[in-house]
């Protein structure tokens, strides 16, 4: 039988290999979440605007992003960004741009559902009160849509956190990469992959429990 040895997981190994990757994974998640929600909200507003010249590009963008495997999107951007800006770009920055643009498509579908969940009467009421489009959206619709969709937005963010491991394809140094390098250097790949799985599980599972709690609280208030 196999003997597992986790003794090499010393504080030095953790700070030397894992912390750097962990920080990048968190950074990537937060940047893509913030950027993705902002851009996704814009895309959702475009799709609901009723103006064909806004609806069509937004729909095409969202549907394209959602039909292509994330790994391929990562590779595409890693190939195209240097062609466009004319100089090579680090895998880390490239990943941040890619994830923001990719997740925007998914967040926009959530925001679209959120905006549609607001009764039309509220929009009519705010127009009747003399508010313009900007005020109606900014003060009436979006705050409620955002609040209603908060649990789903956060669930998507947990999926996003798990998906950050796919930057493996372009060799960015994320949490999984940290584990992999540590495993190679200490010749303990089995232990490192096991610990990586446990760590990802603990983070994702506890976050999803928090989201469920939040969902219950929001549900009671409404």
């Amino acid at each position, binding site marked *: 039988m*196999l003997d597992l040895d986790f003794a090499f997981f010393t504080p030095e190994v953790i700070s030397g290999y894992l912390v750097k990757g962990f920080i990048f994974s968190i950074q990537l998640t937060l940047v893509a979440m913030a950027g993705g929600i902002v851009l996704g909200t814009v895309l959702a507003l475009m799709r609901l605007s009723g103006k064909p010249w806004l609806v069509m590009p937004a729909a095409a963008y969202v549907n394209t992003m959602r*039909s*292509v*495997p*994330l*790994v*391929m999107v990562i*590779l*595409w951007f890693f*190939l*195209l960004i240097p062609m466009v800006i004319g100089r090579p770009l680090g895998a880390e920055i490239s990943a941040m741009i890619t994830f923001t643009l990719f997740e925007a498509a998914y967040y926009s579908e959530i925001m679209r559902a959120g905006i549609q969940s607001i009764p039309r009467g509220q929009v009519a009421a705010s127009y009747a009160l003399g508010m313009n489009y900007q005020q109606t959206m900014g003060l009436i619709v979006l705050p409620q849509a955002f609040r209603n969709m908060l649990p789903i937005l956060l669930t998507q963010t947990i999926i996003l956190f*798990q*998906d950050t*491991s*796919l930057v*493996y*394809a372009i060799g960015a140094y994320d949490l*999984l990469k940290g584990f992999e390098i540590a495993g190679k250097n200490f010749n303990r*790949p*089995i232990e490192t*992959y*096991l610990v*990586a*799985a446990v760590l*990802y*599980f603990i983070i*994702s*599972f506890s976050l*999803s429990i928090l989201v469920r709690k939040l969902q219950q609280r929001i549900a009671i208030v409404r």
Partner: protein
Amino acid sequence: MVDWDWQVFCKDTIDGNIVPGCFGRSGDITYLDWLLSAWGWTLSVSALALLVALALGSLMGILRTTPNRWLVLLGNAWTELFRNVPLLVQIFLWYHVVPALIPPLRDVPSFILVVMGLGLFTSARISEQVRAGIQSLAGGQRMAGLAMGFTLPQTYRHVLLPMAYRIIIPPLTSESMNIIKNSSVAFAVSISELTLFALQVQEETSRGVEVYLAVTGLYFFSAFAINRLALFIENRVRVPGMIGGGGH
């Protein structure tokens, strides 16, 4: 801006000469041959993983709706376990860790390991949908089945599942399309599927845009084909007068 060179697919993979007719002869292969074989790998991994996912996901989803507390717990634990670890990490576990922990699996080809990894990952999502489908039925259906003298398995087989599966065809469709997309992760353990093809051929030929376009197009086409097939199935099995009724 871009100067296309689609002839790259007609090149021999070894000497780089353009082969007339684009398909390699007498044992030689062109990049087009390779692309088609990579597409085959993507489809095979996806199809087999979907079978595994449907079987295990249905089982776990059903367990989560049974009256037995322990079976519910088992189904819940399964779902949370496979849902909360990134797919890539799960694939690495199947490829590097499982064969080391279970020696008889050492000779199993990595293709099978990836199918298991992708299948179990997806089974967690399918179990969610099966559970939701069963729970969306009126509670009276289960009671009626039991009151008619059906055993619990018979109630599931003849009363609950036939309706539940019809209800969840749309989410199962998008999960089947997801499995095609997710199979791209298999590149990480050297399965010669589309994404690995894209990575390697981009490097060999420096025609990244053409290669990625071809690969992306095949992913699109595969997912679209599944979408059409699912619509066909949905229409064929529709119970007249029940749920749905078109709208496509």
